[in-house]
């Protein structure tokens, strides 16, 4: 039965259906697994972890999976990308978004902190794009502190790097374990 479903799903892709209207969680799970079958391993393991954590995605495309309102995130999006050797963090193929009002002045501060932090045009959402959920937590928690004036951008960058090094050395940080702020009320 699963084989038939996967074939149907793949046939849907071939026919150009970029986002099939399948509704049951089981159908979406099968579709998602079929979609990532040929992804790079690095991307595939990320997608499978997110499926295990948040259930089947809400939007499924041949090279991208999207979850809406899962966990603390408004949007979680993972996509297939080729591994690179530029960074030990791995390719930045996971973007996660929270509702977070940002003024023009705050936007400039955030740009000075990290080019992986994005604010939407309306200034109502803030996103982080790194290789893991833990790094997105870290980046957004620091972005929140930059916005609130608790850290300047340079200090936040230093803290980010230091937290990574200490993490590799065995020390955990609350900054990587979850959001330390309420996204809707900075």
């Amino acid at each position, binding site marked *: 039965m699963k084989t038939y479903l996967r074939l149907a799903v793949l046939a849907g892709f071939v026919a150009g259906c970029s986002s099939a209207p399948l509704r049951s969680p089981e159908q979406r799970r099968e579709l998602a697994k079929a979609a990532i079958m040929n992804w790079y*391993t*690095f991307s595939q*393991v*990320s997608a*499978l*972890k997110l*499926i*295990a*954590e948040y259930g089947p995605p809400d939007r499924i495309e041949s090279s991208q999976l999207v979850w809406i309102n899962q966990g603390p995130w408004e949007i979680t999006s993972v996509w297939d990308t080729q591994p690179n050797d530029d960074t*030990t963090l*791995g390719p930045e193929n996971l973007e996660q978004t929270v509702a977070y009002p940002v003024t023009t002045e705050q936007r400039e501060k955030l740009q000075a902190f990290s080019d992986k932090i994005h604010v939407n045009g309306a200034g109502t959402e803030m996103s982080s794009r790194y*290789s*893991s959920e833990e790094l997105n937590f870290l980046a957004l928690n620091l972005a929140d502190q930059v916005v609130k004036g608790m850290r300047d951008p340079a*200090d936040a960058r*230093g*803290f980010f*790097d*230091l937290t990574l*090094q*200490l993490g*590799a*050395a*065995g*020390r*955990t*940080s*609350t900054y990587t374990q979850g959001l330390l702020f309420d996204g809707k009320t900075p």
Partner: protein
Amino acid sequence: MKLLPTTILGLSLFTLLSASAQPLEPGRLFSMGFPSALSKQEFQSLLQRFVNDKYQKSFRTLGDENDFDHGHFLFSAQAPQRPVAILYHTQELTHDASMDPAARNWIQWVDGGNVENAVRYERREYPHTATWDWFIARELPALRARHTILDKMLDPALLGTDVSDSRQWVFTRVECGGAPPAPGSNLIEITLPSGPSVCLALGQS
């Protein structure tokens, strides 16, 4: 001791932590989540024993995040109030040619206080689930590069217990002004084998 270039950043965080590591009012330690079935004095004795054993062999600067300032209390499901062991990580950001870079992870058994290299308890194989596969592909290489063993990398069968919970506690060097730590405070005092005493503030991060 040779420090990584990023130690400058480390020192800034150390300074920040030191500044915030003020002595707490009596009784606050347990309200912060310190294990209720492990007294501060017991932990002080355990850490003293570890320091006696590993000072200048596995670390040089106690209470400094660049070298040695934290341990992970490991709990089993059978006894969730009292840790069965503590996993220490030493040489956190330091590289010293005179020390073995692989000697960074230590298990100290709470009952008895014996210290062992955690390498002997490291998993040889990992379960195959989406979460573990991600860990193996994405996190394990960086950890291995730093010779780091996390609590989740310990094999329950080798340990003889299934670690159901792990809580990190940090001990940051502070000035005590020569006075012994008050019994109910978050401060402990460790005597280095070289003679001087070091005052440490316990905290969770």
